């Protein structure tokens, strides 16, 4: 990977980290309604995926994908602040506040929306891919799923169908070691998710999702393979989330230390950039620039109006109006 590409990914990762940290702060202050799942610690996975998905592609983000949503929104539409506004439930959000953190979508940038019934879009993505295949479009349809969703029946129904129909689907499984409190090796027949996918007969790879160089390269290869009409791919991206469970941290201290200090995706990329001669000042400048950008987005979200109450009953049906109280 050349240095400008790595520098760009570093910047993207900082955009995500600044986004999530700013959001966390606002959430704690009571400015963000609902529940909050952040992608802190998983920035390399998201930056690598975002880098290869075009506006004409389709991705279904998971509940930790504010970052990829924001990157896609910023890159393809120039208005990443609308992802922040959506999380604040505001009229300027990408879904006018009707979706929130777990249901942000904008098809214009390829974002087909999260589904808080975790992993349901493992099946939905098949339809997007099938349509693309029937129409001869070079689209890649990507489902970003957590390790926890591998326990669902739809995982198996969907991988099977992707295989028998040879669909242009990328399953990107973010294995961060746990589903809430359930360690991946206890919840599944194998702690290596890739073992569970392999039986479906298409290319499956496991990779270090915190090494942005490796992740970017292998996601790129998988996307190119799918786009060229060669059928589905499955990637298991191994990572770790900073967020524990509601009551706090439950994971072993050594594990926390390893992932947060020795194997943090941003620190790893910074080391690599410095080894290539990029100065510490420049790296700090990127961080500061991203934090400033995100503070602007937060200000925008806070200053935005609440949705028009009439929105509450709009768009239940295309063909019928639902009566207001």
């Amino acid at each position, binding site marked *: 990977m050349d240095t400008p590409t790595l520098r760009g990914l570093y910047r993207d990762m900082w955009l995500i980290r600044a986004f999530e940290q700013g959001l966390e702060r606002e959430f704690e202050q009571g400015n963000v309604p609902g529940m909050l799942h952040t992608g802190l610690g998983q920035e390399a996975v998201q930056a690598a995926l975002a880098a290869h998905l075009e506006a004409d592609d*389709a991705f279904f983000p998971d509940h930790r994908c504010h970052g990829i949503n924001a990157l896609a929104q910023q890159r393809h539409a120039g208005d990443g602040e609308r992802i922040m506004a959506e999380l604040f439930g505001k009229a300027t959000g*990408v*879904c*006018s506040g*009707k*979706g929130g953190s777990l*249901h942000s*979508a*904008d*098809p214009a940038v390829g974002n*087909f*929306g999260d*589904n808080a*019934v975790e992993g*349901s*879009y*493992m*099946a*939905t*993505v*098949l*339809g*997007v*891919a*099938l*349509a*693309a295949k*029937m129409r001869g479009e070079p689209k890649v*349809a990507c489902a970003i799923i957590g390790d926890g969703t591998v326990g669902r*029946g*739809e995982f198996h*129904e*969907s991988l*099977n*169908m992707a295989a*028998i129909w040879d669909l242009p689907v990328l399953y990107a499984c973010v294995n961060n070691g746990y589903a809430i409190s359930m360690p991946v090796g206890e919840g599944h027949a194998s702690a290596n998710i890739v073992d569970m996918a392999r039986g479906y007969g298409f290319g499956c790879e496991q990779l270090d999702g915190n090494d942005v160089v490796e992740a970017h390269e292998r996601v790129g290869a998988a996307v190119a393979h799918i786009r060229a009409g060669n059928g589905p791919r499955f990637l298991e991206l191994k990572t770790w989330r900073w967020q524990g469970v509601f009551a706090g941290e439950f994971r072993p201290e050594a594990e926390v230390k390893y992932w947060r200090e020795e194997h943090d995706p941003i620190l790893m990329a910074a080391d690599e950039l410095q080894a290539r001669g990029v100065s510490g000042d420049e790296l700090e400048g990127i961080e500061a620039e991203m934090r400033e950008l995100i503070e602007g987005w937060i200000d925008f979200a806070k200053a935005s109006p609440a949705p028009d109450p009439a*929105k509450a009953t*709009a*768009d*239940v*049906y*295309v*063909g*019928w109006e*639902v009566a207001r109280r």
Partner: protein
Amino acid sequence: MTAETTTETAAPAPTASPASAEAPPKKPAKARKTSFTQALNGALDLAMERYPEMFLIGEDIAEMGGDFGVTRKLLAKYGPERVRDTPLSEAAIVGTCVGAAMVGMRPVAEIMFADFLGECYDQIVNNAAKVHYMFDGQFTAPLVIRTACGGGFGGGPHHSQSVEGWFLNVPGIVIAAPSNPADAKGLLLASIASDDPVLFLEHKALYRARGEVPEGWHTVELGKAAVARAGADVTVVASMRMVPMALAAAAAADDDGISTEVIDLRTVKPYDAETVLASARKTGRVVVANEAPRTGGLGAELSARIHEECFAELAGPVVRVDGLDTPIPFSVPLEQEILPGEDDIAAAIRAAYRGGAR
């Protein structure tokens, strides 16, 4: 052919032909006597011709033509890309439909038996019914899920259920429920043309019903009930198999000097409250007939609504005819204990006429 295929021949013929009781269309289209199954098949064929973005998907629908023969011969005409067999993967079938519909396709799925909808309930309830709303109108889900429902043929607990109640409480979904071949065709074409997701209920006992079916592109507007039979004294609100039963019961009530109006809902969600309430106000005596279990079902909703909005005009309480609150047993005499029949509707008409509960 699977063992399940034989259920078609085992299904009893309806007791009356509701099509013949309907007022003739304003501009009489050419009509042909056709079975319910053929009417559906013809509708799918016409729609496949009209909509290149449409495809059929389901288990054994291609070469075999579906468990009830509704998709027969369509594979030969449209090919395996558009008439797509699947493994036993109900969630993936409906998921595929939702995703394809989100990018402008018009998929029509067949779920072999309505009892299997539990397998794809999440896809229907949380995806098909919600993508339009939760993503602020940016997506639509113009898909149809056809499925065979209802009892009366010894299908047992997992092949006999009436499922409309499972979905009545789901905003965003449309439920079409024809009672005769003409409406089967008209509602199916309207469902395919609709940009809302439609659960299309095909009562198994009706598949062999025959009736006049208009040729060519014939649609029945979704959300509009039909007055299947006009009357002055008692209103029966029914759908699917309850309609021919209600018509037969109404004919029997004529002999007692009771003039009975039968409303065929045709779409059970969103249902045509205007037509139902107008008839209730006119007759002041109402029976709601429904095959599904009583508690929390369509009959409960209709009864509540009629009482709420027409209380002062009613001569007595609404009388409900429903299935009992049990699973459907296999043995036919046991099943008959559970499911409502023509006699139950006839008794309810007399009870309503007398002004009260049965």
